């Protein structure tokens, strides 16, 4: 504890009083600290898990309630229709959900700043259209060149939005609302009377339709889990050995085992034959695309200085400015990343439908993306959230869409249920946060 040192030159005012006050202060703040972060004191696995549970209850760890909700939805739909948990439907759900997950990851960059990007739905449409145009017979670009150019164009759109927002100082809501309208117009202009742009490039279409072979699925899964496990173990054990804040070894192992188990389950599901006439097995390519984007953005946000600044701006922009952070640069970067990720989503979306058509509803897509991010635990007020939130949130949205579709409900019913789940998730989060503030 903080023992009072006798000051070299005792200030007038009385050392006795100081000492009593300091002890009281120390005791009070110690209690506060223990209440605030119980797991930091934990030594054993049991302590750690108990502390973790306390944190979940107080709304600190926001993904657990959502995972519970996802389980609940799964049980409900499975009891209504036994096809829901069939391998074929689950893989289908993953492919459907991938566009939502990617768009939600895009939206998270804007949400982390405390801003919003309403344009990503139609920006993704622009990405899909541009790639589809370039691989057409008359241009005959190779798929990789078309995709690269489409993604660069999307990044450019993000640069435009970001510059208007951060340098000119326009509200992100207005700029990206203009983006929502404007890029929809451009999309309709390009698609013209025909209303649809079919894609005939095999590899382009394979992104969402083809799968790894079952053997390759196992190998890729084992490699990914091994890489994750090695990194997690080395990271945590190095911190433990240098006496830094770190979870106990058993918790690290539990974490790795959890990831390995999810990997095995995923591959088992995907490797079950889901074809009707010809057998189809293996992990779809698109799962790897989503995983790659997830790893990339998690890395950027956690390990790079720019990523740290994104959180700092979302938490306290003035503090970041005083610390010398270039706000305009970081904000522009976020909008570039958001549009770039939207471009990836657009490619996946186009690849799944093997075409781009005027049916692409960017307005609905962007609102689903915001909903997925928020359901996954990202705050609308900035500073709180991470790319993995998008995965869970996207799964929830896709599960509702898919499960209600199986039951033959109309689009109207799906919208209402999605709205209720969104409200439920946000209410749960708000209540947990309120509990945390009062408990302080």
């Amino acid at each position: 504890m903080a023992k009072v040192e006798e000051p070299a030159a005792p200030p007038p005012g009385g050392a006795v009083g100081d000492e009593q006050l300091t002890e009281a202060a120390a005791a009070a703040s110690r209690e506060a600290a223990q209440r605030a972060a119980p797991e930091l004191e934990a030594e054993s696995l049991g302590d750690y898990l108990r502390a973790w549970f306390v944190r979940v209850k107080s709304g600190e760890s926001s993904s657990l309630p959502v995972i519970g909700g996802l389980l609940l939805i799964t049980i409900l739909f499975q009891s209504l229709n036994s096809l829901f948990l069939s391998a074929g439907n689950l893989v289908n759900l993953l492919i459907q959900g991938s566009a939502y997950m990617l768009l939600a990851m895009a939206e998270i960059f804007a949400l982390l700043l405390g801003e919003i990007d309403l344009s990503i739905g139609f920006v993704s449409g622009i990405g899909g259209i541009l790639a589809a145009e370039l691989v057409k017979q008359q241009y005959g670009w190779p798929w990789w060149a078309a995709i690269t150019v489409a993604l660069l164009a999307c990044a450019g759109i993000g640069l435009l939005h970001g510059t208007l927002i951060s340098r000119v100082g326009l509200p992100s809501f207005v700029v990206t609302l203009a983006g929502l309208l404007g890029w929809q117009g451009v999309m309709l202009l390009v698609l013209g009377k025909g209303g649809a742009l079919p894609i005939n490039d095999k590899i382009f279409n394979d992104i969402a339709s083809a799968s790894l072979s079952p053997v390759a699925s196992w190998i890729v899964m084992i490699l990914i889990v091994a890489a994750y496990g090695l990194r997690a173990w080395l990271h945590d054990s190095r911190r433990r050995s240098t006496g830094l804040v770190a979870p106990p070894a058993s918790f690290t192992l539990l974490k790795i085992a959890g990831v390995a188990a999810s990997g095995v389950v995923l591959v088992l599901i995907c490797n079950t034959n889901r074809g009707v006439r010809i057998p189809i097995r293996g992990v779809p390519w698109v799962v790897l695309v989503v995983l790659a984007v997830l790893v990339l953005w998690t890395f950027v946000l956690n390990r790079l200085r720019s990523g740290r600044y994104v959180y700092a701006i979302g938490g306290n922009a003035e503090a970041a400015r005083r610390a010398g952070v270039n706000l305009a640069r970081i904000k522009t970067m976020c909008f570039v990343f958001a549009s770039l990720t939207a471009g990836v989503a657009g490619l996946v979306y186009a690849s799944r439908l093997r075409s781009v058509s005027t049916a692409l509803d960017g307005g609905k897509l962007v609102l689903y993306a915001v909903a997925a991010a928020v359901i996954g635990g990202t705050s609308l007020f900035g500073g709180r959230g991470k790319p993995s939130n998008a995965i869970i949130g996207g799964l929830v949205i896709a599960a509702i869409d898919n499960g209600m579709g199986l039951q033959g409900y109309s689009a109207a019913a799906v919208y209402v249920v999605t709205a209720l789940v969104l409200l439920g998730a946000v209410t749960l989060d708000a209540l947990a946060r309120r509990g945390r503030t009062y408990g302080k």
Partner: protein
Amino acid sequence: MSIDVGSEPAATRSVPSGGAEPLLRLRGIDKNFGPVQALTGVDLEVHSGEVTALAGDNGAGKSVLIKCIAGIHSPDGGQIYWEGRPVHLHHPRDAAALGIETVYQDLALADNLDIVQNMFLGRERLRHGLLDEEAMEISARETLTSLAVTTVRSIRQPVASLSGGQRQSVAIAKAVLWNSKLVIMDEPTAALGVAQTAMVLELVRRLADRGLGVVIISHNMNDVFQVADRIAVLQLGKMVAVRPADELDRQMVVDLMTSGVSTRERQAPASVTPKEAGTTDGQG
């Protein structure tokens, strides 16, 4: 009574100022905002290892003065000397480069980041282009330990979960982390309770004992007399007195703040004791 500005003989009491050049010397600082004269010919010396309290009524120019030192405002007249050399501070960066750090009233901490992340915000350490969390965590822990900020349980807890006094301690530790020589604090105890205030004042004292120069703005006379070695009083943009704290008492400072002069004799030390309940008064 003539104004006794920075009288050196009296100021050399128990203060380890080394007798050499003061850390910071202001000579005849003027600052005006349009027709409003905020500072007029302000002289001040700040010594290492000493807490200088800046007192004054609202609008006396305290904040303007520290902003001139912190490089936020450029003075319109006068000269600032840093360790004996004349310097010009046009930007907070210039001040930071000299070793001047300012702890603002609103703390400038990001609630969602943890203590380490806040302390290194804007000056993160990198290894191979990536954030070097371990080096930063070790440095932050060393700094907090050396300042005896031991009430914080983990330096990986978000700042949002800290008490007011702890947040202030983190903000001060952040200023010290950069081998700063002068720390300026604007009302560090304004929003704190009794116990938290004591914790922060103790920390302020410890900074001076480590050999840093400290300038502290406070409205609270208890705080001023508890922690300051020297008290500088501003009135309407003029420095009306800079004197060792033990030559002044509360009433004299209030007189100086309001009228610019004090005709009183310093009373017996007993009158200097804090009035708050629960504070046992030491006899000077």
